[in-house]
């Protein structure tokens, strides 16, 4: 429930900011986003009110949960961090090196291996996949993928 309330507050704040940001623009540019912000706020307000009323009627206690832990601190949390790291290093480290690292590390994390042979297998796979798609995009589609500092 606390999660829903925080979510509703965040959406309402975003709508208010969205409304203020376009307020000074011309009618033809501001009318539609303003209207959407008002509709969004109204919908969120109705939604959260109904949820609170439902709770009160059912007399359910509100479970206190750590919002962040509830949303991100599961297996997916580590995957999210790896994805974010991947796109941060992509430009500087280059496509090939960062992709080999990302595919290898995420595979290792999902499989949870510790044997050297398994690690080697996984990095061989990540190397081959990266090179295969590099070849396809670079040579077949003529797309210049980021080469980074290594090049």
């Amino acid at each position: 429930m606390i999660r829903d309330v925080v979510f509703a507050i965040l959406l309402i704040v975003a709508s208010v900011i969205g409304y203020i940001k376009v307020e000074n623009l011309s009618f033809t540019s501001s009318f539609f986003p303003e209207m959407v912000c008002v509709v969004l706020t109204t919908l969120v307000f109705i939604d959260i009110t109904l949820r609170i009323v439902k709770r009160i009627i059912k007399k359910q206690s509100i479970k206190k949960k750590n919002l962040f832990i509830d949303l991100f601190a599961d297996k997916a949390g580590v995957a999210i961090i790896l994805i974010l790291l991947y796109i941060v290093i992509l430009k500087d480290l280059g496509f090939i090196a960062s992709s080999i690292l990302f595919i290898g590390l995420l595979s290792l994390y999902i499989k949870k291996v510790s044997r050297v042979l398994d690690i080697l297998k996984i990095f061989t796979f990540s190397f081959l996949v990266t090179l295969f798609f590099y070849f396809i995009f670079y040579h077949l589609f003529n797309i210049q993928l980021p080469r980074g500092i290594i090049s």
Partner: protein
Amino acid sequence: MEHIISIFESLLTFQNILFIIVGVAGGALISSLPGLTATMTLALIIPFTFSMNATTSLLLLGGLYVGAIYGSAIPAILINTPGNPSGIATTFDGYPLNKKGETEKALMASGVGSSTGGIIGAIALLFLAPLLASVALSFGPPQLFWITVFALTIIGTLTSQSQLRGFIGGAIGVLIGCVGIAPIGGDVRYTFGMWQLQGGIELVSALIGLFAIPQVLEMVKEEKIRIGKVVSYKHKKGVLKEVIKYALKRPYLMIRSALIGIIIGIKPGAGGNIAGIISYNEAVRWSKEPEKFGTGILDGVLAPDTATGSEVGGSLIPLLALGIPSAPPTAVLIGALLSHGMIPGPELFKKYSDIVYPFLFGFLIANIALFFLAIYLPRISSKLVNIPRYFLIPTIVFLCVVGSYSIRNSIFDVYIMVIIGLLGYLLKKFDITAAPLVLGLILGPIMEKALIQSMLLVKSGESIGEVFFGNAISIALVLLCILALIWPFISKKHSLIIEEK
């Protein structure tokens, strides 16, 4: 006559036919991996089509769409887990048939059903889409505005467990769609000083992020290393003949299922899963032996798969004629059309008839090709089911990154893809699925343009009532919006019965 010859001239090239076949086969194989939905498959492949010409690109994606919907039935039969929601109803009798040792029969029935439904759906698409487009040409901005409101209303209603959350998702999508230069006013909005956002959120990046990242993160959480277990079955002679004979003896079942699929496909928000379940439900209702359903009978595979096959063609009708995607995979196809400079909608048939008509006929060919490919594809798919997750998941993310980068050779699009993908994952936790978000994102700019043009008519002296309600089509559309709003309350009982089934 000349026009027809030119359509076939541009369609029947070696390259186009090859890409149709590759599309159908690729879609079926990728989508037979549980977790890889048809939408995700299309979103991941779209970047590979940018360097192709528009006709070939659309033919490949059309083939992929056909194959991907069919592909979900393969693991549904083999391991009781559909590749994507479209295959849910196939598990009801497909898996019991497999358990009885009639695996090949079930797989062939799935192929025959999908291709028959697909061919009927393609014929409906061929006739209805141009017809609807010619009617829609007479629509003015107010009618277009009401159509977009109707699409968002019905999608909010159908795609989330909570109707309100579905609408909230749609509104968030519309607001994200406001980023960039206003379509009529010309002012820059919500760019926060980033020039890359002036052209708006890159649609294909957003689609890749929304349809792939949340799905991948859900897959990471699953404990199983392998999606399925080793599956093999023995090939027997004459099974296909037997299945075809069986299907021919049930023309009503096939036609009824195909019609259900087409209608569900046209209706915004209801995808292949609903078409399959409703068709299965109707097959049970009309059967002389309803008690046999669920124990492993061919009718229980033919009915849902014919419906899901024809649903694909049905879902393309509102997309091509009105520019409204009625199902998530068609939202991705909008991205493909836009990337080739084609704006989906009634004008499409006038301006790009040299591309659209070859696509329509190509779509028919794709469904015919599916009939033949379905004989061999399950044998390969049964091996693919064994690909371990730890290879699959990083490769999907990698393809998302490469795909979004290749749209404009821009790292900024990769950031957008990941941010929107994480937003989609977060919103999913609050029961807001990707479909209303994407619909809002796509329909937002169309809705804004139509609304502002209508408001300018009001400013020029016409009354609001006259502009927005002064036309029979407008009133009909408003009534449809109201019906879409109250429909969940009316049909609650009906849905409960279907869910129980």
